[in-house]
């Protein structure tokens, strides 16, 4: 049985590197943990770590990933239930406990929720857990009846032995089944036998959500709890110099100030009271030497990287410079994309209670394993003393994932330690926007050579900008070779005989991190805009040009064609409306989008319709995929139209939704999502719908205006209808 905890250091490394896809053995009760696993309590029988069955037939399926809107509280239980053959109507989902994951040697695998990986990386062990439990339930029934297990069948939570007409329910045999040794040779159903996977199952969390019942982090209320809010040093990397506490002494409902290394917290009776006090508190910061940095200086730094001689070569096939020199047509362009904030609807928060022998947290986290270790480190205790209660998340989008970006965790622990009571730390929206780990700003310079018939011969892709790994895990990169900054480019599906991809790392003091679809969000804009430029430069239809580049790749071609067909590519459009197309693969899922847009006489952009074809391999819940693509399109359009974080005097200039604008219902186009699952793999669905939106829109705007958009957001562009 796998053991990932030879010692504490080993555990820390494993936890930090965990990206799912761990060995199956991990996720089922090992012989040593079976004593715990087989415990039957009034809560029901734990058949294995993932499945608890009650005498009343309720099947509780544990979910180790965070529910932040993407639907895994339904999709992951569906994977288990498919193989368990229980009655879906009796299924309820509950979070797996991070502390139990720690105590039971990572029995729930990775709790990291990001990279659209929940289904992709856990489907195998979750389905196996279901099949294993089913076999144990059948074995328990067969033993009681003294018949061969092979003669028994299970369906909808009932086991039957046809020859003797006997039947028993899961709830009746669960306690006996939990005492059996799990089999290690279960076979999973072929896709053709799935009854639940692939069905548009209603989300398990919707009834609570329409009745405002779920507890988000911000809703946690504990006996004796106090409230805190913070001002973070407005210049990244700066420190607190001094704070004049006398100015808020005696304010009603305000208890105290807690100075931290790079922030100041005020603690009191309620959020509003501490926010008022914080606003009145004179604070002096040490800007750490970055008070002179602004967007213009960052822009120059990044742009210089486009011609820098220090770029790390991350892919090189053939002779790019030689072929380009001899090419019939050379196309060249530079693009840029800004920093972006996450701005999840639920502002950053974390509730903590630190006592002599325990640290307890209630927190919306995308990575509870990391949260637990961070809290232990911040409190100076062994991780076994930490309990983390994962709440529902009012959005995550990457902000609440990576350990480094969970800066609210050590902050809440430090305040709770100082106060000695449970503390709910809640940031204002302003702090949420100005103390984020931003989607990196980035620039691209592309040069391509094409032959006389428009065939793509060579392509040099130079990227420059801050590296996410430099902020989040600097030890994982050397010589600036952060290959992840080139995701979607290095592995692009197009046939390019000669290709050179290099990256000039240009870090700034602005922390960067994972933002929904990560580097695909800007890289797809660069790549798909340039594909469009090459098509137009050689007089080719942008859809047909992509077809020619994907001729060798039937999976991609199928998605591209499905989108074009659904959109009626080539059909006549209403006057003033134009189409653009873009294609991208991200996280194992292939997506093509066609955007229809117009530009008014005043230069206002209107997006009328987005058609999306998506191949996620298998489909767990088609309704969830529809919802995720609809949402990803909103996220991508928001960024394309409005999204921009700018820096002045080392600080973020934007503060709230009035100057960091969001798409609203009135701007919402029609969205049509076409599922074209190949069944060839398990792809993610939370993010892949986002990257093609911006380039498909900008390509439509080129068709509408003749102006090529090479820098986002569109609010900074002046457009005139052609």
């Amino acid at each position: 049985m796998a053991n990932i905890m030879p010692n504490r250091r080993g555990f820390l490394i494993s936890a930090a590197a965990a990206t799912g896809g761990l060995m199956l053995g991990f996720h089922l009760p090992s012989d040593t943990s079976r004593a715990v696993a087989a415990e039957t309590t009034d809560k029901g029988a734990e058949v294995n770590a993932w499945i608890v069955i009650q005498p009343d037939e309720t099947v509780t399926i544990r979910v180790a990933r965070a529910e932040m809107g993407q639907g895994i509280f339904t999709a992951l239980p569906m994977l288990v239930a498919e193989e368990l053959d229980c009655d879906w109507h009796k299924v309820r989902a509950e979070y797996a406990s991070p502390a139990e994951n720690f105590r039971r040697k990572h029995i729930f695998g990775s709790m990291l929720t990001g990279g659209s990986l929940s289904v992709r990386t856990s489907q195998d062990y979750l389905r196996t857990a279901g099949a294993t439990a089913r076999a144990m339930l059948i074995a328990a029934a067969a033993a009681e009846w003294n018949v061969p297990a092979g003669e028994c069948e299970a369906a909808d939570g009932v086991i039957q032995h046809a020859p003797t007409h006997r039947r028993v329910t899961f709830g009746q045999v669960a306690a006996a089944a939990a005492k059996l040794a799990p089999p290690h040779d279960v076979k999973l159903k072929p896709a053709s036998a799935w009854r639940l996977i692939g069905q548009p199952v209603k989300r398990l969390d919707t009834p609570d959500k329409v009745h405002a019942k779920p507890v988000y982090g911000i809703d946690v209320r504990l006996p004796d709890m106090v409230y805190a809010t913070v001002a973070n040093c407005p210049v990244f990397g700066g420190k607190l110099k001094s704070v004049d506490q006398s100015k808020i002494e005696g304010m009603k409902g305000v208890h105290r100030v807690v100075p931290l290394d790079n922030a100041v917290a005020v603690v009191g009776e309620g959020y509003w009271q501490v926010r008022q006090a914080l606003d009145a508190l004179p604070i002096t910061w040490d800007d750490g030497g970055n008070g002179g940095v602004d967007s213009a200086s960052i822009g120059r730094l990044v742009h210089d990287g486009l011609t820098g001689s220090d770029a790390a070569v991350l892919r090189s096939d053939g002779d790019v410079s030689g072929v380009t020199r001899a090419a019939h047509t050379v196309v060249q362009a530079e693009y840029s994309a800004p920093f972006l904030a996450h701005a999840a609807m639920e502002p950053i928060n974390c509730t903590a209670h630190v006592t002599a022998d325990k640290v307890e947290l209630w927190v919306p986290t995308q990575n509870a394993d990391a949260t637990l270790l961070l809290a232990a480190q911040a409190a100076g205790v062994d991780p076994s003393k930490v309990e983390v209660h994962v709440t529902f998340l009012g959005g995550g989008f990457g902000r609440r994932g990576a350990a480094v970006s969970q800066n609210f965790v050590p902050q809440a622990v430090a305040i709770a330690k100082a106060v000695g009571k449970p503390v709910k730390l809640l940031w204002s929206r302003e702090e949420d926007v100005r103390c984020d780990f931003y989607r990196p700003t980035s620039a691209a310079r592309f040069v391509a050579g094409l032959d006389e018939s428009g065939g793509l011969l060579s392509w040099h892709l130079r990227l420059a900008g801050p590296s996410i790994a430099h902020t989040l895990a600097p030890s994982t990169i050397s010589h600036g070779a952060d290959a992840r900054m080139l995701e979607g480019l290095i592995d692009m599906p197009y046939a390019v005989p000669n290709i050179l991809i290099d990256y000039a790392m240009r870090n700034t003091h602005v922390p960067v991190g994972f933002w929904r679809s990560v580097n695909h969000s800007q890289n797809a804009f660069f790549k798909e805009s340039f594909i469009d430029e090459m098509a137009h430069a050689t007089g080719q239809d942008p859809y047909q040009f992509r077809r020619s580049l994907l001729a060798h790749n039937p999976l991609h071609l199928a998605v591209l064609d499905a989108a074009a067909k659904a959109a009626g590519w080539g059909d006549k459009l209403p006057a003033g409306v134009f189409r653009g197309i873009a294609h991208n693969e991200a996280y194992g899922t292939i997506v093509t989008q066609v955007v229809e847009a117009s530009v008014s006489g005043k230069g206002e952009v209107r997006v009328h319709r987005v058609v999306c074809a998506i191949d996620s391999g298998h489909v767990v819940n088609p309704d969830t995929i529809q919802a995720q693509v609809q949402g990803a399109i909103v996220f991508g359009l928001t960024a394309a139209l409005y999204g921009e974080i700018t820096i002045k005097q080392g600080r973020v200039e934007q503060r709230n939704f009035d100057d960091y604008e969001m798409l609203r219902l009135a701007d919402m186009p029609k969205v049509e999502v076409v599922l074209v699952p190949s069944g060839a793999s398990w792809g993610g669905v939370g993010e892949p719908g986002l990257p093609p939106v911006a380039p498909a829109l900008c390509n439509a705007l080129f068709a509408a205006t003749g102006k090529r958009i090479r820098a986002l957001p569109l609010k900074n562009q002046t457009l005139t209808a052609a």
Partner: protein
Amino acid sequence: MLRLNINGEDHTLDVDPDMPLLWVLRDVLGLTGAKFGCGIGQCGACTVHIDGQAIRSCVTVVSAVGESKVVTIEGLQRHGDHPVQQAWLEHDVPQCGYCQPGMMMAAAALLKATPHPTDADIDDQITNICRCGTYVRIRQAIHTAAAKG
């Protein structure tokens, strides 16, 4: 002391008259259905009804409520089966769900004033922000609620 009528119940509270209604609901009364999203009346996550009108409670000081009747998502309908809630269920609208109490309160107020809203009415009246991007289904659900209401 301040008197407030919330979801049909009278409360006598010792709170700062300048405190926004949102924080009275959430921190003082423990009614956490109304959410904090921006604090400046931009996002609508804090939407509640005052005398049937949708208002943004994060920018409504509690002393301004007076004798008016406040209704939150918890009191929208006794059994939680308001046509808007039923329609939200039918269309599986929520993703993260955080903005949805505000969305449903805004939609319920819209339907009260305009029982059969057009798309343009919806565009005009539903200005709340949903970062997950559930707008397609919000629009469908409002039409469904209107048809059933």
